[in-house]
């Protein structure tokens, strides 16, 4: 019985250590850092797959997107500010897609914190969001990203050797499509 007791105490201690060490991954992503590991499903929609330069099925990591820069918006269909900013973020997508110089260098995705596929679909349809959105139903990505408030923007630069770093991040305060694009171009060195 004593052995069993010792074993259980060891399990508790080990678990406590693991839990206490968790906050290291529990802070918002910042400039100069790498993204936490985020696995997303390769879109079933072929337009979205082509947009991201992905093929096949299964999971992918954000640095695998064929682009020099990826803008990530962490949003929620339940977030009033995300709703308010949605048309402006759509406009950012169009500004990029209509500019031949940057079209293939900058991609935009959204991660729906706490949103199911259905809820992400409601948001996508409601605002006619033209770029890929991914559900994060159980807040797993949101937790890995330090439980940021929404909308939260992360700009990631992907290097030719496959490495990456965050070059800009901001909570809310979306300034509009053109000013935000300027921020992205400057932070990523494209301009």
């Amino acid at each position, binding site marked *: *019985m004593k052995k*069993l*007791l010792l074993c*259980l*105490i060891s*399990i*508790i201690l080990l*678990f*406590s250590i693991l*839990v206490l060490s968790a906050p290291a991954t529990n802070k918002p992503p910042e400039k100069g850092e790498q993204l936490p590991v985020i696995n997303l499903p390769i879109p079933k929609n072929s337009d979205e797959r082509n947009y991201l330069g992905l093929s096949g099925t299964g999971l992918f990591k954000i640095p695998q997107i064929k682009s020099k820069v990826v803008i990530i918006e962490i949003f*929620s*269909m*339940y*977030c*009033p*500010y*995300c*709703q*308010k900013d949605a048309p402006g973020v759509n406009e950012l997508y169009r500004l990029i897609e209509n500019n031949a110089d940057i079209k293939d260098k900058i991609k935009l995705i959204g991660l729906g*914190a*706490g949103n*199911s596929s*259905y*809820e992400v679909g*409601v*948001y996508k349809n*409601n605002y006619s969001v033209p770029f890929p959105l991914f559900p994060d139903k*159980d*807040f*797993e990505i*949101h*937790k890995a990203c330090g*439980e*940021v*408030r*929404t*909308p939260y923007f992360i700009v990631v630069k992907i290097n030719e050797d496959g490495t990456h770093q965050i070059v800009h991040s901001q*909570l*809310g305060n979306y300034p509009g499509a053109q000013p935000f694009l300027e921020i992205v171009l400057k932070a990523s060195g494209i301009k």
Partner: protein
Amino acid sequence: MEKKNLSILILAIGILLVLVAVPIAFAISDAYKGNIYQMGTLKPVDSVLKVKTGQTAPDFVLPSVSGEKVSLNQFRGKKNVVISFVPAAWTPVCSDQWPGYNIAKDIFTQNDAILLGITVDNIPTLFAWTNQMGQLWFPVLSDFWPHGAVAQRYGVLRSNGVSERALFVIDKKGIIRYIDVHDINKRPPLEDLAGALEKLKK
């Protein structure tokens, strides 16, 4: 003695695992800045339902934020009704739930339904809180006085005086067709409510 210790240890491990593993849906929108009062994790359900599906929904008349009084019976024969009780203004989860419904109006109109949002807060509090959500398309009703009387009649008033996070779908005949007294710490998935509304057509 040893058996008792063992039970305590197993219980401790269980609690630890639950605390770490259970995801909690916070009010994460930046719209509320630092104005959301964090409640911590609460007992999932703390009341006993007094109604069930198939029964006639108890009528009520409550004041709304926009000024007029709204009764359940005014929709009888005209609209299906979804009642969304949320526990309290300026608290996590509640502060996100209605803004989501606000962009899901189509789901309600396609099923010939109206949404009534109810909390036990008073009108000025509801006015300030819902102003942060944008322009809501549905009435927000105050079950403040007599305190929580409607929530009490439905059996969704918790022991601390707030309501459960509960959804009731009532058809045009006034019959309760769906009840979800949800874990207060979590937001009910929208697809579940949409599914319940779809079933009204059958």
